[in-house]
């Protein structure tokens, strides 16, 4: 039987690599009886979903821009080479 520590490690790895069938079975068995590890699993998936949403939000947000100073500095560098 897996304990919660071992389960949490495998649940995290399941987001990074395919688990072996033995590992999958063991994790599934533990999740059936452990509400905390079930929550943990849902929460990791939620975090992954939101991480992608967040980066997209930042990339599309029009109120984040290069500062004037940085823009100036980059323009000067471009002049040197172009």
């Amino acid at each position, binding site marked *: 039987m897996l304990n*919660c*520590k071992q389960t949490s490690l495998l649940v995290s790895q399941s987001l*990074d690599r395919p688990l072996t069938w033995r590992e999958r079975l063991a994790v599934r068995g533990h999740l059936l009886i452990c509400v*905390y*590890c079930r*929550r943990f699993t849902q929460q990791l998936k939620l975090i992954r979903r939101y991480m992608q949403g*967040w980066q997209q939000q*930042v990339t599309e947000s029009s109120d984040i*821009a290069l500062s004037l100073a940085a823009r100036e*500095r980059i323009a000067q560098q471009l002049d040197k080479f172009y």
Partner: protein
Amino acid sequence: MKSNPHDWLKEHGDYLYRFALARLRDVHQAEDAVQETLLAAIKNPNFAKQSSPRTWLTGILKHKIIDCMRKQIRETPVSELLSEQDANMDDFFDDTGHWAEKPQAWDVPHDALQQTQFLKVLQRCMERLPQKLAAIFTMRDVDEMDNDEICKELGITATNAWVMLYRARMGLRKCLELHW
């Protein structure tokens, strides 16, 4: 099609900056990445032929961002990377491997306002994560690079990568639990 680096800066500079900032979370590093991208673009002899400068520039930027993350991670020896948070990790579980503090149920953000709030907390929690853990976590969960690619880029083993990603997730989850 006429293409001029100063036009790129004007038209795509902010976009590239935001793209970099979302991944590096540091204003100066993001600015440098934009500058290096445009300089690298000039030196590419095919630059005038690009039909979609933004896509092309973003492709160059991605490499610059990875270079930057690699530097962040390589500055620390792997042994240190892995021992850094050991004390904290042990706090998560008791001696028998059970949760020391049991994961609490979260409200799943359902409307736009809650989603925005959740994102804000997530962002603050990312900032609290050790920079190297945040870097590898971004590669994996944001840019969806596969593990082999990450290991190759960072010069670490698959096992090291899994452990670092696990630590990043444990840290983020705990932080969200406290502040969400």
